[in-house]
C-alpha cells in the first residue's frame, strides 16, 4: 500500500513521540492539540445526527413551509368551490319549489310583457 505524505509524516511523529524526552511545554501543547482535534471530531460533520441536523432539517423546514402554503392555497380554493356549490344548490332548490314554473324565468317575452304592464 502506498502511503500519503501525511501518513508518512504522522508515522515519523509517532516514532519520535515514542522515544519520549518531550519538555513539559511540548507535552502540554500536544495534549491541547489532541483535545482540540478530538473535540472537532466529536462535533464535526461526520456524525449521522449532525448530517441530519445540518443538511436535512433546513430542507425539511423549507419543504414543510412550501407544503403548508400549497395546502392552504388548495384548501382555500376547495372551500371556495364548495361554498359556491352550496349557494348554487340552495338557489336551485328555491327556484324549483317556487310558485313560478321554470319557463317563466326563461321566457324573454314574459319579462318584456311584465315591464309593459301598468303596475297595480
Amino acid at each position, binding site marked *: 500500500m502506498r502511503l500519503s505524505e501525511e501518513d508518512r509524516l504522522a508515522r515519523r511523529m509517532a516514532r519520535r513521540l515514542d522515544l519520549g524526552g518531550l519538555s513539559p511545554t511540548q507535552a502540554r501543547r500536544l495534549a491541547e492539540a489532541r483535545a482540540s482535534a478530538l473535540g472537532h471530531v466529536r462535533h464535526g460533520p461526520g456524525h449521522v445526527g449532525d448530517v441530519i441536523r445540518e443538511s436535512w432539517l433546513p430542507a425539511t423546514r423549507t419543504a414543510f413551509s412550501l407544503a403548508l402554503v400549497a395546502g392552504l392555497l388548495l384548501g382555500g380554493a376547495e372551500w371556495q368551490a364548495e361554498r359556491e356549490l*352550496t349557494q348554487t*344548490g340552495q*338557489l336551485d332548490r328555491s327556484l324549483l319549489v317556487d310558485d313560478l314554473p321554470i319557463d317563466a324565468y326563461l321566457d324573454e317575452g314574459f319579462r318584456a310583457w311584465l315591464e309593459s304592464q301598468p303596475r297595480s
Partner: protein
Amino acid sequence: MARIATALLICGLPLVAAQAVAQSEPPRWDELPPRMQGVLGPIEADWKRMDPDRRRKWVAIAEGYDTMTPAEQQNLLSRMREWAKLSPGEREQARERYREWLSIPAERREALRERWEAYQNLPPDERAKIRAGQSR
C-alpha cells in the same frame, strides 16, 4: 434542491391524500338510499351523465325534501326533469332571472304567478310578437 424536493414529497403526501378524500366521487345511483332514489326518480336516466358537482347538488336538494311543504314537494318533483334537461346556459339564465325577481316586493312577487297565467292566456301569435320584439 434534491433534498427539498424529497422532503416536499414527504410533507406533501398527506395533503394530496386529504385532497383526494375531499374530492371523492359522489354516490352512484345504486349507492343512493332507497328514499333518495324515490325523490330523485325523475332524473334517474340523467344521473350517469351528470358531473360530480351536479350530483352533489341533487343529493343536497333531495336531503331537504322532507322539510318541504307538500306544494313545494310537488313543484320539485314535476320540475326536476325539465331542469336537468336544460343546458348550463339556460340554467344560469333562469338563476339570474330568479335572483333578479327575488328583489321584487313580496306583494308584487305573489302576483307574478297570476301574471304568468295571464301571459300564457294571450293568443300565441301575440306572445310570439312580444318575443320577436325582444329578440330584435
